[in-house]
């Protein structure tokens, strides 16, 4: 029951999804759409698990007064404040101008944009460390990156050549390697999916 039923479910649902691709029948379409919807519903229930985990871990840290527990308290207050202003007014909370949306606009968006923009700093420091002509491979990486970056710096008479080179890199070798990459990923993912459906790959299922 604990192990064989789930494996059976995996195989049945997996092969159904595989076969239904070839069956244009209305019934097959209907079941396909429903199954995708059910998965969304399962995801909705699962979010309770996430919420529980976050609350449980944070409350525990606050209770045990582990170093830095004050920050866990901040996270918990943020979470529950959002839940209150989100639930109490009902669906209205998603309309612009509500307390919930104000928090989104003035707290969430600025922090999110700032976190995202940290990338500008990190991309520079990563380039500094990684782009050194140590080996042939590193040199290729370096040259290709610099050619593309130079597109944005006015180079005068050289800019025409650089534009041509950048365009060539993007449309030819770049496309070639991407195709090879995607085909490889396709085969790897297909093999993994097949292993799951056949029950060969089942570590994700637990053991007892």
């Amino acid at each position: 029951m604990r192990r064989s039923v789930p494996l059976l479910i995996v195989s049945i649902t997996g092969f159904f999804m595989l076969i239904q691709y070839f069956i244009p029948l209305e019934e097959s379409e209907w079941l396909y759409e429903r199954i995708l919807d059910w998965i969304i519903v399962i995801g909705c229930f699962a979010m309770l698990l996430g919420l529980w985990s976050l609350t449980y871990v944070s409350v525990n840290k606050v209770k045990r007064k582990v170093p830095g527990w004050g920050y866990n308290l901040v996270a918990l207050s943020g979470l529950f404040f959002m839940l209150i202003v989100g639930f109490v007014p009902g669906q209205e909370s998603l309309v612009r101008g509500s307390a919930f949306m104000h928090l989104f606009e003035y707290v969430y968006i600025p922090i999110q944009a700032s976190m995202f923009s940290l990338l500008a700093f990190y991309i520079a420091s990563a380039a500094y460390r990684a782009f050194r002509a140590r080996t042939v491979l590193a040199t290729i990486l370096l040259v290709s990156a610099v050619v593309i970056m130079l597109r944005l710096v006015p180079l005068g008479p050289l800019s025409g050549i650089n534009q041509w080179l950048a365009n060539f890199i993007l449309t030819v070798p770049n496309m070639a390697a991407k195709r090879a990459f995607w085909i490889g990923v396709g085969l790897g993912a297909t093999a993994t999916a097949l292993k799951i459906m056949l029950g060969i790959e089942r570590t994700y299922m637990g053991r007892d």
Partner: protein
Amino acid sequence: MHPSPDIGIWIGGLLTLGIFSFLYGDNPYYKFCEALFVGVSAGHWFITLFWTVFIPKLLGNIGIAIHTFRTEGFAAGMSDYMHWSYIFGGILGFLMILRLFPKIGWISRWSLAFVVGTTAGYYFINYLVSNGLMQIQKTILPLTSVGNIILVVGTFCGLIYFFFSKEHKGAFGGLARVGIWFLMITFGASFGYTVMSRMSLLIGRMDYIFGIWLGMIR
């Protein structure tokens, strides 16, 4: 200098500085912003999902089902019965929560199996078609221009690189080596054009701090 009178802008500005302080090193200011961000975002995500997905998808459909049963009884058509099927999704979801109870937690594997199995079947086809057949179709080009020749050769060598069961030596190793060169060109190029995007993000933030918030620009 004309700082913004809007308190919301001030909060946004102060939080921005808190995040930037991380660049110097971990500190209480950043820790506060981080904790607030995690809490607020989890709450935001939960509420949004609840109102925009959970309510319409599950309760909405079951609501329709109950309503038609009340008004039409068993005379309702097949398409009306279909809404009842969402109860099945609801049950699978409910089983998922049973994880919280150690004694019967193993039942939640049934829902997990449903999710994993379905998507395995779905992706089996999806990857085979869009990553396999479609890419092959696009790469079958007449070898009539230098560009096309390089494209086909590059794809060929790239695939050689991904062979696992053959040692990379001799001529085979040479082709694999060319393959990884092509991959490196691609990685370099995408690094290069991502720089522009990332710099733009920081420009946007700096404009917020010095322009919108502190009013130092124009």
